[in-house]
C-alpha cells in the first residue's frame, strides 16, 4: 500500500525544488536555509531519539543465543553467535553491523506437493550489503565537497571506486558505486512490488525512503555524467556552508538544487523514521548482551518485590494431608 503516494510525494519534492530555484529564484533557501535546518533536525533528532531509547533500561539479559553456550563442560563454545564475554559481544556486534550476519543466515521456505522445503537464500543479504556499502562510499566521497583540501582517505576511496577507468560519453571517470546503488535500490524496491508477502506488509514509509534515495542518486548521476554542473561553483557553495559563511554562487542550476533538497529532506526525515535502525541495531538487547546469565547477575533498576505464596501458607493448607502421607512438615 502507498507506493503511488510515496512516489508522488518524492516527485512533488522534486517539483518544489525545481519551481523554487528555477522559477522563483529561491536559491538561498534551497542552498542554505533548508540544508542547515535539515542538518540541525538530523543531529538533534538523532541524539534525542538515542537518549530516549537509552533512558529505557534493560531490565533483563535476554540475548538470542545462536550457537553452543559457554559451560564448564568440554563442549566447544560458539564465541561469536553465543558470546559469554564483552569481547565476544563486541565481535558479534562487529559481524552484525559490518557483515549483516543475521541476514546472511536467511532462508526461504517453499511448499511443493504438500511438503515444506527450506533452502539458503542470500539475495536479500546481497542487496542490503550492496546498497549500504555503496551508500557509505558515496557518502564519504562527497566529503570532498565539504573540505577545502580533499583528505587522502577520500581520494583513495575515489580512485578505488573508479578503478575501471571508464568514461561515459566523455564524462568524468565512472564510479562503480553509481551502478551498484541503482541496482540495489531497484532490487529492494522490486521485491516490495513483486513479492506478494512484502507488498502486503509494506507501508508508505517503506517506499518513501527508497524513492527519495533513488531520486538523490539519479539526480547525482545526471549531474556527473550527463548535464555537467559547474563543480567549482558547487564546491564554493558547500564549502561556504562548512565554514558557516554561506554564499550562493550564480548559475549552478536547478538540477543541483533538486539533488541538494532531496538530501536535506532525507536528513530531516531520518530521526523520525525506520532509518533509525542505523542507531537501533547497536542498542538491540538480543544482540549486544553476553549470555553469561548463570555466572553474572544482571540487575534490573526497577525490580520490585512481588507477593507470592510462602511455604507456611502452603503447609497450613496441606498439613493434614502431608502428615497422613508421611511427608515431613515444619509444624506438627
Amino acid at each position, binding site marked *: 500500500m502507498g507506493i503511488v503516494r510515496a512516489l508522488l510525494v518524492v516527485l512533488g519534492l522534486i517539483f518544489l525544488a525545481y519551481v523554487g530555484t528555477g522559477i522563483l529564484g529561491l536559491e538561498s533557501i534551497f542552498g542554505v536555509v533548508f540544508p542547515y535546518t535539515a542538518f540541525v533536525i538530523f543531529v538533534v533528532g538523532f541524539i534525542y*531519539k538515542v537518549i530516549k*531509547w*537509552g533512558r*529505557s533500561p*534493560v*531490565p*533483563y*539479559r*535476554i540475548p*538470542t*543465543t*545462536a*550457537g553452543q*553456550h559457554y559451560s*564448564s*563442560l*568440554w563442549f*566447544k563454545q*560458539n564465541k561469536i*553467535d553465543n558470546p559469554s564475554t564483552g569481547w565476544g559481544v563486541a565481535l558479534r556486534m562487529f559481524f*552484525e553491523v559490518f557483515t*549483516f550476519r*543475521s*541476514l546472511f*543466515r536467511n*532462508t526461504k521456505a517453499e*511448499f511443493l506437493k504438500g511438503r*515444506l522445503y*527450506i533452502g539458503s537464500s542470500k539475495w*536479500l543479504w546481497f542487496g*542490503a550489503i550492496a546498497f549500504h556499502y555503496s551508500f557509505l562510499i558515496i557518502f564519504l566521497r562527497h566529503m570532498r565537497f565539504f573540505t577545502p583540501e580533499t583528505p587522502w582517505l577520500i581520494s583513495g576511496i575515489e580512485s578505488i571506486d573508479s578503478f575501471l577507468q571508464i568514461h561515459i560519453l566523455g564524462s568524468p571517470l565512472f564510479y562503480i558505486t553509481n551502478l551498484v546503488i541503482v541496482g540495489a535500490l531497484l532490487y529492494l524496491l522490486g521485491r516490495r512490488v513483486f513479492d506478494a*508477502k*512484502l507488498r*502486503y*506488509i509494506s507501508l508508505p*514509509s*517503506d517506499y518513501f525512503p527508497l524513492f527519495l534515495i533513488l531520486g538523490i542518486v539519479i539526480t547525482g548521476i545526471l549531474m556527473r555524467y550527463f548535464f555537467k554542473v559547474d563543480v567549482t561553483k558547487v564546491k564554493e557553495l558547500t564549502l561556504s556552508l562548512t565554514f558557516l559563511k554561506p554564499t550562493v554562487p550564480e548559475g549552478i542550476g536547478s538540477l543541483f538544487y533538486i539533488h541538494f533538497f532531496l538530501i536535506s529532506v532525507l536528513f530531516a526525515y531520518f530521526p523520525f523514521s525506520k532509518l*533509525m*535502525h542505523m542507531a537501533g*541495531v547497536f542498542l*538491540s*538487547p*538480543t544482540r549486544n548482551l553476553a549470555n*553469561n*546469565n*548463570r*555466572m553474572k*547477575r*544482571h540487575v*534490573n533498576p526497577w525490580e520490585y518485590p*512481588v*507477593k*507470592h*505464596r510462602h*511455604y507456611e501458607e502452603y503447609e497450613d493448607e496441606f498439613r493434614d*494431608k*502431608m502428615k*497422613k*502421607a508421611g*511427608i515431613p512438615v515444619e509444624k506438627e
Partner: protein
Amino acid sequence: MRLPRPEELISTVNLKKTPPKWWMDLKAEFKPGFYCYGAKGKNLAYVDFPNARDWSPTEEDWKLPEDWKRIVIEGIRQRIERFRTFHIFMDICVRCGACADKCHFFLGTGDPKNMPVLRAELLRSVYRRYFTSGGKIFGRFGGARDLELDVLKELWYYFYQCTECRRCSLFCPYGIDTAEITIMGRELMNLLGLNTDWISGPVANCYRTGNHLGIEPHTMKSTLEFLCDDIETITGIRIDPPINKKGAEILWVEPSGDLFAVPGVYVAMGTLMLFHEIGLDYTWSTYASEGGNFGYFTSLEMAKRLHSKIYEEAKRLKVKWILGGECGHMWRVWHQYHDTWFGPIDFLEEPVSPITGTKFEHAKSTKIVHISEFTADLIRHGVLKFDKSRNDNFIVTFHDSCNVSRGMGMFEEPRYIIKSVCNHFYEMPDETIREQTFCCGGGSGLNAGEIMELRMRGGFPRANAVRYVHEKFGVNMLACICAIDRAQLPPLMEYWVPQVRVCGVTELVANALIMKGEKERTMNLRMEPLPGKEGQ
C-alpha cells in the same frame, strides 16, 4: 471438532497469496480451532488479576472495564519506559520481511498476520498512533491506527497464536524479538483480564499447590511410589524417593507434566533410576513441585511470583544447589530471569557434582544446573555403565526445544547423551535444528485441546522435518528435553507421522543404564520387550 486429513489441511496453505483487502481493513475472524477458551473468573481472582470474570472470546461483549483504552495506552507507555527491547523493537523495524517465512504459524496457516513482522505491526500501529509524531500527524498513511475494540480483539487473537519461540529473532538483522513483543502484548491483555483458560488454570493451580497440574503433596508422593513400583517390576530394584528432605545436597525440580502423563512419566522414572544408581543425595519438593512457569505466559510479574518458591524452598531445605529437569520455557526463565529476580543467591553454594567433582562454574551465580549438563558430565567421567543395545529398537532423532536453543544455547549436551546411550541417531536437516529449530507448535500455553487445528498447523514444519528423517533413515523416535514437547509432539506425530513416537532424553538414559543389583532386564521403561527379548 474433527480435523481434516493432513494432506487436506496443509493444501489450504499458500504462502504467496495475500487477502484482497489490506490488513488494517480486515477484522480478526475468530475461527474455531484457532483460539483458546477465555479464562474463568475464579482463576484470575485467585492470583489477584484485574477484571476477573468469566468471559468468552466469541461473545460480542468482552466485559471490559469502562476505561480499557486508557489502561492499554498507559500500559504501553509504562512498558516503553521500562523495556529498551520493546521501545526499540517498536521503532526500528524496516519490514524487510526476513522473518516472514521463519514462523511456524505462518508456514502452517498462510495467514499473513502470522508473519512475525505483521504480528508486531498489529501493536506497532497502535504505538505509532499514540506515541510517535509520524503516527499522530499522518495516521493511516503513517502506518498508525486507533485503538478500537476490533483492534483489541485482533491483538488478543494473534498474541495467542505466537509461541514465543524466537525463531524470527534469529534472522532479524536488528534482533527484533517477537517473543518480547508477544510478552508485552499479553501483559497488556492481562491488564484487562483477557487471559485463556488453558493458561490461567495452571497459573492458579501453581500458585496454590506449587505445580500447574494441581498435584497436592500426598498425591505427588503416591505418584512417585507408583512410578517406583514400575521401576521395581522392570529392574527388580526398589527405590524410595526422598521428598521434602531437609539437609539434602541437591534440590531437584522438574516440570510437573513429567509426573502426570506418558511419555513424561518415563522421564521421571528415568531420573529416579539415575539418581538412585549414582547414590545422589537429593530431594524432591512438593512445594517447589514445578520447574515450568505458565505465569511467564501472562506477565513477568506473575512469572516471578510463581518461581519465588524455588529458592525459598532451597533455603528452607538447606540444600547446596538446585538441579533442574528437562523443560523448555522453564529454562528460559531459570537461565535468563532468575538471577535478576531472586539474586544474589548467597545462601546456596556454587554447584559441584558430588559424583565427579566437576565444578559447574557457568552456574556459579544462580546455582542451578540442567539435568543434561549433569548427565553429560557423569557419562564423560565414565561413572555410568550402559547397554546401548537396549535402545536398538529406537531409531532416534532429536528435537531442540526453542527456549533451550535460542534462550540459552545448549545443543551438544543432549546429543552427547543420546549418542552415548543409543546406537541409532540421525539429525534432521540443518535448517530445522539447533538455533534454527522449529517450535513444536504448542509452546507458551498454546497446547490446549480446543486449538488442535492451530497446533497441528503450527507444528507442521517440525513434523515435516521428522517425516523426512523417518522416510530417509527409518527414524521412529523423536527425543526432546521439554515437557511441553512431550505433551504436544505425540499428537503432532500421531497426525503427521504416526510411525514416530516421542521420548525424553533421560528415558533413553535409564533404558540403557546398567544398575547395580538389577535383574536381567526384559522390558524398557514403557514395559515393551527389549530387542531380542520379545518371547519372554
